[in-house]
């Protein structure tokens, strides 16, 4: 029982990180309809930007914010310079996936070339341990959960309470209709890529904080649970991705607790494949979303 409760606690902590990334992925997809696999390597980039700063004794939480800003900016440029022109030329969806996979591989090996292939670590950051309701969590895990909750709440307020958020949702659901309502869809789309890139960079630093050590494969490895979370919650739907992140986080940690820890990722893979085969619109996806997923 103790093992079960502890696994749930770890699951919530890793679920918070997965949710950060999954929400960013979902926002991007909802806006542009592109499955951006480069997202994984951008997350790795975030982790290494964080490493660069923490090695210069910057606080990890400042590093998290800076990495978010850097990756957010790169994400906008990446979309503007590479993906958007390809979409305008009518490049087919599977070719776009190959482009984003390739760009991810390029970025990954550029990072390796600069930072080296060996495993890195942020050093000892965990601080004191909290025991709450049977959960055992480190201070940094608690901080990351708080950061994730605050960011999700901020995103929720942005999407529902501001003019800009409404414009974003309008553009995501029908770009042409949004344009004819006078929304500057290019600007709104840039903003979405900035936001999702920022979440991606922050998730990268958060991942590096929660894992003992990481290397250049950090992002691609954790991208799968994030896509699983996004698909589970209904892709393109930020709220679904938040809940999906929690479910995937708990599922992977329970798998790790009750079987071979190396299989923890397999739980996420299995959730993703099963969702794609059985209910691609996700648990909470609207019927209209199904049309976008099917051929």
């Amino acid at each position: 029982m103790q093992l079960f409760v502890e696994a749930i606690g770890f699951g919530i902590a890793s679920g918070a990180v997965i949710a950060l990334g999954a929400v960013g992925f979902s926002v991007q997809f909802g806006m542009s309809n592109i499955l951006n696999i480069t997202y994984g390597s951008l997350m790795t980039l975030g982790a290494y930007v964080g490493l660069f700063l923490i090695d210069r004794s910057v606080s990890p939480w400042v590093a998290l914010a800076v990495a978010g800003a850097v990756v957010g900016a790169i994400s906008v440029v990446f979309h503007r310079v590479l993906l958007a022109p390809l979409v305008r030329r009518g490049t087919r969806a599977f070719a776009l996936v190959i482009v984003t996979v390739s760009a991810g591989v390029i970025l990954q090996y550029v990072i390796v070339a600069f930072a080296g292939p060996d495993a890195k670590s942020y050093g000892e950051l965990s601080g004191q341990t909290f025991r709450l309701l049977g959960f055992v969590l480190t201070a940094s895990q608690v901080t990351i959960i708080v950061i994730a909750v605050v960011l999700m709440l901020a995103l929720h307020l942005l999407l529902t309470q501001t003019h800009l958020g409404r414009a974003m949702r309008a553009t995501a659901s029908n770009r042409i209709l949004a344009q004819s309502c006078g929304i500057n869809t290019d600007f709104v789309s840039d903003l979405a890529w900035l936001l999702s890139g920022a979440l991606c960079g922050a998730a990268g630093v958060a991942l590096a904080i929660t894992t003992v050590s990481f290397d250049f494969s950090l992002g691609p490895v954790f991208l799968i649970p994030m896509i699983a979370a996004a698909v589970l919650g209904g892709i393109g739907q930020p709220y679904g991705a938040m809940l999906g992140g929690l479910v995937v986080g708990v599922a992977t940690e329970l798998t790790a607790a009750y079987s071979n820890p190396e299989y923890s990722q397999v739980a996420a893979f299995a959730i993703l494949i099963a969702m794609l085969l059985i209910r691609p619109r996700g648990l909470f996806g609207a019927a209209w979303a199904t049309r976008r997923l099917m051929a």
Partner: protein
Amino acid sequence: MEFYLIVLLVYLGTDLLAAWGLNLEFGVAGVANLAFILTIAAGAYAFVVFTLGPSAAAGNFQQYVGGFSMPFPVAVAAGGVAGAVVGVLIGITGLKRLRQDYQAVAMLVVSLMAATVVSADTPFLNGNAGLVVLPNYKPFGDQDPEVQRWLYVAIVGVVCVAGYYVLRKFTRGPIGRTLRAVRDDEFAAAAIGKNVVTSRLWVQAVGGAFGGLSGALLVAFIGGWSPGTWAYVETLALLTAVIVGGMGNDLGVSIGTFLIAILLLQGVQFLPQIPGHIGLKEDLGWIVLGVMTIAFIWLRPRGMVPERRPKYGGGS
């Protein structure tokens, strides 16, 4: 030097088989199979398991399922069959009519998942350490080693020629036309009575068999096989060969394979070693590979030697 030439010829032969198989799936039938490397891995593991004999006989220094002592041709055929089976299993994830990009991601995930499971499950195929072909394994009895190596190149060459013949049957014949129809307009093909699912599974089986043969012939030559040799990026190398050469064109894909697998990925090995940066040459190889893929999709999506539009007679 002569040995290196032999190595290159074997690599070229096995890469050609793999690239043709992938081209059949991706170029001709339009299935963006990002898990293609699994068929190669399956063929290689099948070959090893069919030649190693029971695990206990060799003192259990590596663990694996099965373990037979079959002659070389049987083991290679087993590799082909294993590739075909895995190809069909991968194809099943694409049965549901998902968007093509979702299909590609599902297959990428299958590839990562298989690598995780095989690495973690040591009793299955010796996990992360991989399997080594027994050092006393000799397909041709007690010949001079050099003669043996050239004999091996000849075998790979014969399989390639036979493979090319089968491939032409597929790409040029009625089956090829059906596959192209399914690729270009699934609904139209279904409307005139073509069974989309069956034809896709067939192409997965045949393409997978090509991958399996490629893996079996490769592992018999290099002598070992582990999860590190079939990471998902290896599929990207083959995919780049297909895209650069020309999707759906057998000749183009062959040229693309030579350019990517031999000139680029072997060529970077000859770059000078920069001190303090181990593996930088290989990193550069992957970076160039990725740039080439994106550049071709951007500038010349149909490749160096584009697929020939079929001309149908009857208009005379």
